């Protein structure tokens, strides 16, 4: 029974990690950009919700929507003003610029919100759970998180394969030069993609804050989880990213089962093992 519980917890944790990872996967897929500030932006998203709730006294859903809009604008501006200038064959500029950004974000948040740990208060929801057979129970928030991840993936797949915007995304991702010839403004498409990724990041921030505590400096470790989920799942497939998140979640919960100190370590180790056996991830998108 305890194993079943561990599995359920692991899978649900995987939903959270998938949310962390989807934004990363999206922008890497479209513009081959790895955003080292991704984790910190997630924390920024969480703080944005927090500000809405604590400072403005808004109900969580409204605060979350506002945070989403805020992050959308942040993403658009960030990409349009800063990151577009770093794209190119050389990988150093985007890495360095986003690394610098990460340092700025961490310290900026530290300055604004202090180093205190925070948590989003979801009212009764946080304690609520659904009881299953044999004394098993599923927490409400983890479940909603998982469902949200699936909704986001469904949305992304719909966007990618059934809309004009998605066509433009795919065109630029396949070949930016050709896309330009087709009359697509790559800069704007990239900005739009980043804005979209930041909305997902805001959603991730919401659940991150709802499921556990956070502080301005934990962004980098969340970035690593996100990254691991993407790589395990294989680049270019959103469902793969979910699978990657679940595998990471399972590895961590099982590790913690053995020794709580090993939770994170066992996630990393499973990641490294998968990297050695299947460097392209478990579910890479078939090219062609």
């Amino acid at each position, binding site marked *: 029974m305890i194993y079943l519980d561990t599995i359920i917890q692991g899978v649900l944790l995987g939903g959270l990690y998938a949310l962390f990872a989807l934004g990363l996967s999206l922008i890497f897929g479209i513009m081959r950009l*790895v955003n080292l500030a991704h984790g910190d932006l997630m924390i920024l998203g969480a703080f944005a919700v927090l500000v809405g709730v604590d400072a403005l006294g808004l109900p969580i859903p409204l605060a979350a929507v506002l945070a989403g809009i805020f992050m959308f604008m942040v993403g658009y501006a960030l990409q349009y003003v800063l990151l577009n200038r770093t794209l190119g064959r050389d*990988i150093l500029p985007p*890495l360095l*610029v986003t690394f610098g950004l990460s*340092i*700025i974000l961490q310290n900026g948040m530290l300055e604004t919100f202090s180093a205190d740990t925070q948590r989003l208060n979801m009212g009764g929801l946080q304690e609520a759970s659904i009881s299953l057979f044999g004394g098993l129970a599923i927490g409400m928030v983890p479940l909603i998180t998982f469902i949200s991840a699936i909704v986001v993936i469904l949305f992304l797949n719909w966007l990618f394969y059934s809309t004009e915007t998605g066509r433009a995304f795919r065109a630029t991702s396949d070949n930016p030069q050709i896309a330009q010839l087709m009359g697509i403004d790559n800069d704007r498409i990239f900005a739009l993609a980043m804005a979209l990724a930041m909305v997902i990041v805001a959603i991730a921030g919401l659940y991150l804050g709802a499921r556990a505590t956070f502080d301005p400096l934990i962004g*980098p470790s969340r970035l690593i989880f996100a990254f691991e989920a993407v790589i395990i799942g294989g680049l270019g497939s959103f469902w793969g990213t979910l699978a990657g998140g679940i595998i990471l979640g399972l590895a961590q919960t099982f590790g913690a089962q053995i020794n709580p100190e090993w939770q994170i*370590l066992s996630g990393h180790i499973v990641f490294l093992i998968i990297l050695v056996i299947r460097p392209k991830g478990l579910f890479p998108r078939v090219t062609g």
Partner: protein
Amino acid sequence: MLDPKNYTVAKSTRTSRTALVFIFVLVVLLAVAPALVSRSLLQDLFFVLTMIALAQCWNLLAGYGGLVSVGQQAFVGLGAYIGFAGSILWGLNPMLAILLAGVVGAALSVPTAFVVFRLQGAYFAIGTWVAAEVYRLVFAQWKALGGGTGTSLPSGVAKSIAGLSWVREGLDIKSSAARDVISYWIALALVVVIVGAIYAFLRTRSGLALSALRDNETAAESIGVDTRRAKFAVYIFAAFGAAITGALIFFQKASITPQSAFSVIDWTAFVLFIVVIGGIGTIEGPIIGALILFVLQNWFADYGTWYLMALGAIAIAVMLVAPRGIWGLVQAKYDFSIFPTRRRLLGPDTPVPDYTQPIREMKLPPAKGVHAADTPLEVPTMFDIETDVLIIGSGPAGGASAALLSSYGIANIMIEKYGWLANTPRAHITNQRAMEVLRELGIEEDAIAKSVPQELMGNNVFCTALAGEEIGRLLTWGNHPSRKADYDLASPCRICDIPQTLLEPIIVAKAMESGTITRFKTEYISHTQDENGVVATVRDRVANEIYRIRAKYMIGADGANSLIAEQLGLPMDGKMGLEGSMNIEFEADLSKYVAHRPSVLYWIFQPGADIGGIGAGVVRMVRPWNKWLSIYGFDIKDGPPNLSTDEAEQIVRQLIGDDEILIKIGKLSYWTINNMVARRYAKGRVFCMGDAVHRHPPTNGLGSNTSIQDAYNLCWKLKLVLEGKADASLLDTYNDERQPVGRQIVTRANKSIEDYGPIFETLGITQGGSADDVKRRMDSRKQPTVEAEAKRKALNKYIRQKSYEFNCHGVELGQRYSSSAIVSDHTAEPEYTRDRELYYHPTTWPGARIPHVWLDRDQQSVSTLDLVGRGRFVLLTGVSGAGWMEAAARASAELDIALDAIQIGPGCSVNDTFGDWAMQSEVSDSGMILARPDGHVAWRSHMLSANPTGDLLAVMRQILGRT
């Protein structure tokens, strides 16, 4: 001139030698510093030195190796922990423990590399971070060293450091201060060793390859260095350096926690900022960066978070504005380096032996229109030299392009992979149309001087061996009296035979004389293009140096294995490598077999000679009558036979059929029969020409000739567009006009090979059997029987049929273009009254080459073709064409374009003495013919129009795309 003896490769520079002395003095000063400065300054210096050590290691990884790691804290922490474990747990002397830390760091970097090297680029970065996290979490489990909370160094251990008492007494200080001094000395030694090692490494071949690596992986590989191994070595070295430094730093700190030892901020973020701000990819940069960080730290560290934010912002700004950092800016301005790691080629070409210039900014000899990039060091997509047109390949296509562009006054650079021009006499038949281009370039006489004239080219002999039986003969290349007139009437130039080895130097010499910069031993590697130009990455194969050339347009004339056509993804029709063929060069005096029937080609029909190759065995004259080339086929399925000299001689002897004659075998080369044409010749600003876009066998001798015509078609268009006189759309007509020609000649040349089959069959060679059987079948045609007569007739017909290869005048110069750069005069295309491949049909119908007739100017014969060309449009009109003369002057002024007008006829500057022009111009005396710079008719008018200026302007505007 290109004698390698004239070149030396210089790595050190005069300034760098002065700098070396300076560095030496500095190191000595730093070494005695403990006796001179305060303890707190010494501690600061220690900090700076350790940061320099880490920054150098990271710079080696990222700046040279392209391995952008954000996980170097893994090795700093590892080193720190091993250092602590060694001295606390295993009782080692701290010095030994530090060394052990380095060794363990290097050892563990191997399995780490095994994992993280599976990731590329940015993912590699995060992968290294994950690895560092794993190390941190694992070391946090090491209970003996305090687990997650860490531990401190017992004071006994600190005191056991070697030489402590000696320093304490020597400098008369407390033992804690003495420990600082020793740490400081170790740090100083470490920096000297690390910098020295990196510097030495970067000056080796692998080091150079590594520098090339960040620019382009394939480039580095083409230098012949295994880049994976080089990267691997760099990774291990950087781990070693980081681990030793880490151990040292934490000995000095005397306490350790997993968080501090594996801190991404302290050991990676700061290090990264140091390198980027100082200048990545240089040895000087990290040193400068560390000093700057130190100053900032001292002044602003109290501001905590704000300080860090500012640091992040500075790093971002530097990356975006001056990605080469402070040292890059200094270099751009003062152009020198203390640690020159790049080699420079010093040779007769290098104008000023200015020892202060690293090759990256090597200025080419000053030439018009070529200028070094203004800010060579600031932009990452930078380039080193700039020109208008970059030509890749110096074969007939590239050479002709260079010569033509230079004659038009357009700046161009031509690069060639090898050290000299063609080294085997491949192409040789040089047709009239090609000679006309040489004539315009002013090198017709030079070419004729090196050529074998038409009269000696024409006895195309078909025989069983040179000394054997002659089966038939065909007078070729216009040597039959009935064809001689066709050839003579068609052009001011004679067809002739010049081996490619002799023609290329004439063309390229002309090009260079008129301004082309040619870089031999320089290989094209890749290119990128944007709306304004093309940046090509090329490799100097002498100095092993990669550099970039920016051009407004690029011409890919890189031959049948064109890398450019491949990279552009030009769609190709057809196949390569259909048959195998080989060239055997040899010397032998064959006068007795050939002088009475002079020819360039002798076709040998023997059993086996029909396998592979170009249809039959060939003995080709290179120089009469002692230099020769045999062409013989091989079965492509078996691959090139790799003949020994003896075997080659065997083949040659068999073709000659004389066992006595002295033969000296020369070079052997293998090539294949191809049948491929590009469906599109150009993409964006890159234009391919020559064998790059049409690949076919040498039958008909059209390869080099067509390549020259490709150049003749494109270059004037480039000129007008570059001068801003025509819209870029004019360049599209290059493809529209030349691609159909490419398709036509590829088909023609391959068809000509097939035409040998029936001859072999009729002779009975292909049916097999013993040599006697074959001989009997061949002799059967000599019988007085009806069957034999039929055979004789058939043979005669098939041999005559070969005129499609050897007298194919229509294909040689009868091209008619149609594109938006040709304006119809609304008359129907004149019909071909004779076979259109065999016969040239002169006409002035728009699109056709202007017909040649001899005219008289100042008592001298000039051809109509002499009147046109040289980069300008020319309007030819007659005695009653004054209206056109004026129209031309006005149009020329209005469009600001070279447009000359000439009246032909009695009383005019050019007289039609023989009246031939009157017969051939197809327009009346008030009409006109507008010739393009390539001699093709752009438009014509049968008489003076109502509005000549308006009509001419409209036509010119359409051609130039200036609507």
